[in-house]
C-alpha cells in the first residue's frame, strides 16, 4: 500500500516536473512549427542565472528575475537569429537552434567554468512536508508541483482569457489572416518565443536545485523533453500535461516491474521458444527499461498517431 501510494505521488511529481520543462517547448513548437532544440539550453541558462542572482540578492528574487532574463535572451535569439530564417523553412530554423546548443553550453562554461556550481536550496524549501507511512515528501518537490500547476493555469488563462492570448492562438493556426487583420505577427512570434524560453528558464530555476547545476544539465534533460512534447501533441498544453504525467507515472511504476519477456513466456508455458537461443534481449526486465520507455512510446506514437495525443497541428 505504501509503495503504490508513494509511486503515484512520485509519478505525478516527476510528471509535473517534466511538464514544467516542456510547457514552453510545446508553446514555441506550436507557434513556429519548429522544435526549439535549444530549449534545454535556455533551461540551463535559467538555472545559472538563478544561481548568480540568488548568490547576490536571494532565491525569491531569482525566481522572478531569472525567467525574465532568459525570456529576453530568447526574444533576442528570435529577433536576430530565427526571424530571417522563417522563409527558408523549418530545417534551417531547427539547425540554428541546434547550433545554439553548442554555443550556449560553451558560454556557460566560459562564464562559470566546467564544474557544478554550488546553487543552494533556500532554507524555506528544505525539509519535508508530510509523511506517508514511512516515506517523507520533501517541501521542495511540493513547491515544484505548485509552480508547475500555476504555470499551467497562468498560461492557460493568458492564452484563452486575454486579448493577446486570443491573437496568439489565432496566429497559431492562421498567421497570414492575423497579419492581414493588422497585427504585428513577427513581434507576436518574438514575444511567444521569448515567453516559451522564459518558461524554460523558470523550470531551470527549480531544476538547478533538483539536479546539479552544471554545463551538462541541458544534455541530461534534452531528450526526455522532446519525447514528452511530441507524444502530448503539438500546440496542446493539455497534451503536454497529460503526456508528462503519464510518463512520470509509467516510469514510477515500471521500476517496480521486475519481469521480462522471458518471464512472460515462462508464465504462458511458451519458454521453450526462447530458451535455446539465449537471446539476452528477452531477459531484460521492464524495470531495467524504465528510463528508456519514453523513447519507445515516442516511436509508437509517431507511427500510430503523428499528431500526438491532443495535437492541433500535424508534425
Amino acid at each position, binding site marked *: 500500500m*505504501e*509503495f503504490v501510494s*508513494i*509511486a503515484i505521488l*512520485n*509519478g505525478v*511529481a*516527476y510528471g509535473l*516536473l517534466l511538464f514544467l520543462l516542456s510547457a514552453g517547448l510545446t508553446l514555441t513548437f506550436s507557434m513556429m512549427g519548429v522544435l526549439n532544440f535549444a530549449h534545454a539550453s535556455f533551461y540551463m541558462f535559467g538555472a545559472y542565472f538563478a544561481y548568480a542572482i540568488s548568490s547576490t540578492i536571494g532565491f525569491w528574487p531569482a525566481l522572478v528575475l531569472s525567467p525574465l532574463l532568459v525570456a529576453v535572451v530568447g526574444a533576442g535569439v528570435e529577433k536576430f537569429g530565427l526571424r530571417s530564417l522563417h522563409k527558408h523553412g523549418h530545417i534551417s530554423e531547427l539547425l540554428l537552434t541546434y547550433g545554439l546548443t553548442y554555443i550556449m553550453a560553451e558560454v556557460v562554461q566560459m562564464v562559470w*567554468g*566546467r*564544474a*557544478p556550481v*554550488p546553487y543552494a536550496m533556500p532554507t524555506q524549501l528544505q525539509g*519535508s512536508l508530510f*509523511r506517508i507511512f*514511512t*516515506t*517523507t*515528501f*520533501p517541501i*521542495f*518537490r511540493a513547491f515544484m508541483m505548485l509552480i508547475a500547476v500555476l504555470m499551467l493555469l497562468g498560461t492557460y488563462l493568458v492564452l484563452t482569457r486575454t486579448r493577446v492570448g486570443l491573437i496568439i492562438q489565432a496566429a497559431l493556426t492562421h498567421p497570414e489572416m492575423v497579419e492581414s487583420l493588422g497585427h504585428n505577427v513577427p513581434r507576436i512570434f518574438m514575444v511567444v518565443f521569448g515567453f516559451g524560453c522564459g518558461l524554460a528558464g523558470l523550470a531551470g530555476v527549480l531544476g538547478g536545485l533538483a*539536479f*546539479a547545476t*552544471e*554545463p*551538462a544539465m541541458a*544534455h*541530461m*534533460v534534452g531528450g*526526455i523533453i522532446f519525447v514528452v512534447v511530441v507524444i502530448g501533441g503539438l500546440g496542446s498544453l493539455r497534451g503536454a500535461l497529460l503526456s508528462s504525467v503519464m510518463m*512520470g507515472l509509467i*516510469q*514510477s*511504476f*515500471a*521500476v*517496480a516491474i521486475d519481469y521480462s519477456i522471458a518471464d512472460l513466456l515462462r508464465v504462458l508455458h511458451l519458454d521453450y521458444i526462447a530458451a535455446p537461443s539465449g537471446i539476452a534481449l528477452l531477459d531484460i526486465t521492464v*524495470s*531495467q527499461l*524504465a*528510463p*528508456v520507455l519514453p523513447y519507445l512510446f515516442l516511436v509508437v506514437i509517431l507511427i500510430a498517431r503523428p499528431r500526438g495525443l491532443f495535437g492541433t497541428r500535424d508534425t
Partner: protein
Amino acid sequence: MKLNRLAQYALPLITALAAGGANADKVRVAVIDPSSGPFAAVAANWYKSMLMQVDAVNAQKLAGENTIELVAFDNKGSAQESQILLRTVIDQGFRYVIQGGSSAIGAVLMDAVNKHNERNQGKEILLLNHSNADPELTNAKCSFWHFRFAPNSDMATEALTTEMAKNPAIKKVYIVSQNYPFGQAVSRSTREYLKRKRADIEIVGDDFHPIGQVKDFSPYIAKIKASGADTVTSGNWGPDLTLLLKAASDADLKVSFYTYFANTYGVPLALSPASAGKLKNIASFSPNNAGFNGKEFVEGFKGKYKEDFILLPLYNTIAMFAEGLKRAKTIDPVKVAYAMEGIKMKTFSGEMEMRAADHQMQAPLFITSWAKVDGKSVRYDQNDTGYGWKVEQRIEPYVASQPTSCQMARPPR
C-alpha cells in the same frame, strides 16, 4: 595546463626534429584525458593532482637526474580521438602515456600500444593507467606495457564486502547499478563475495538502470523501502550517484549506503547532513587517516588550486614512475617497466607494491564514512561543505588482493 600549442600533425619537419632531439634528462609524458566535455572538470582535478607531484619530483630529484614534464592532450572523451592522439604523441617522440578517464578508452589504447610496440621494436611506449577500474585490463587483457596504479573494481568489491560481512546488523542488501559492464560486474561480484562471506545475508534487490538517464530515483527508493533492505550498495558514479543519494535523503530512507564513488568530484555537494554516519565509501585514501599522512600535500594542493586532493592513485602514478626512472637509471621504457615491476613504496596510505605478475598496484584501501568535521578524527572536509571522510577501517592489501589470470608476454630485458 600546458596545452599543446603546435598544430599536431601538419608539419613533418617539427615531427622529425622532435623525435630526433629528445632530451635524455627530460622525460616527456603525454596525458590523454578529456579537457573538454562533461568530464573536463573532473579530469582537470586529476591533472592538477599529478602536476603537483611532478613539481615535487623535479624539485627533490626523486627521479634521479631526470625531470618529468607533463603535456596534456584533449581526447574529448572519445576513444577514436584518443587513438589519433596516440599516434600524434608517438610522432612527437613521447615514450610514456598516462590515461585513466575511461576503461573503454584504456582498453582501446592498450590494444593500440601493444600493436605499436610489437610492430616497432626499439620505439616502445608505456601506458600508465591512473584510474581505469575494469578488472579485465590486468587479467584477460593484461599487457607488459600497461601499469595500473589504482585498485580495480573486483578489489574494491572484495574489500567492501569484507567490511559489510563484518557488520552483524546487515541482513538485507539491495544493489543498485548502472546497466553496463562495470555496474554488472559490481553486482555480480557483490553477490558472489557476500555469499561466500556471509551466506545469511539476503540480497533483496538487484536493480539496473541505463547510465545517466534516470532523473528521478524516488521510484527506486520506494522499491528499496518496500523490500525491507537495511543496506544499499551501489557502484554508481556521477549524477547517478548524486541523485540516488539525494532521493534517499528526500524520502528519509533509513538505510546505510556502501558506495565506491561518493568521494569523487562534485558528489559531496549534493549530500545533506542527514547522510552523515549512514554513507560509507571505499577509497584509496582519505586525508583524515590515522596520523593524517599526506597533510602537507593536501593542504598545499588546496592552497594552490583551491580544490580538494581526492585521489591518491594519481599521486601514486607519478611517485612510482619517478622511482622506476631512478632505479632503472635510464629513460628507456623497457628498462623502466622492468624496474617498476615489484617496487614497494611507502606513500600516504601506507606501503604499496606494483605486482609484477599483472602490473596491478596492491595498496591499502579505506572504508570511510561521511562525517562532520570535528577537528579530531575529521579535520579535512570536501568541497567546503564542513563534512569530510572519516576513516572507519583500514584494509590491508592482502585482503583486497585478487588472483590474476594474467599471462603476460614479456620482451627481452
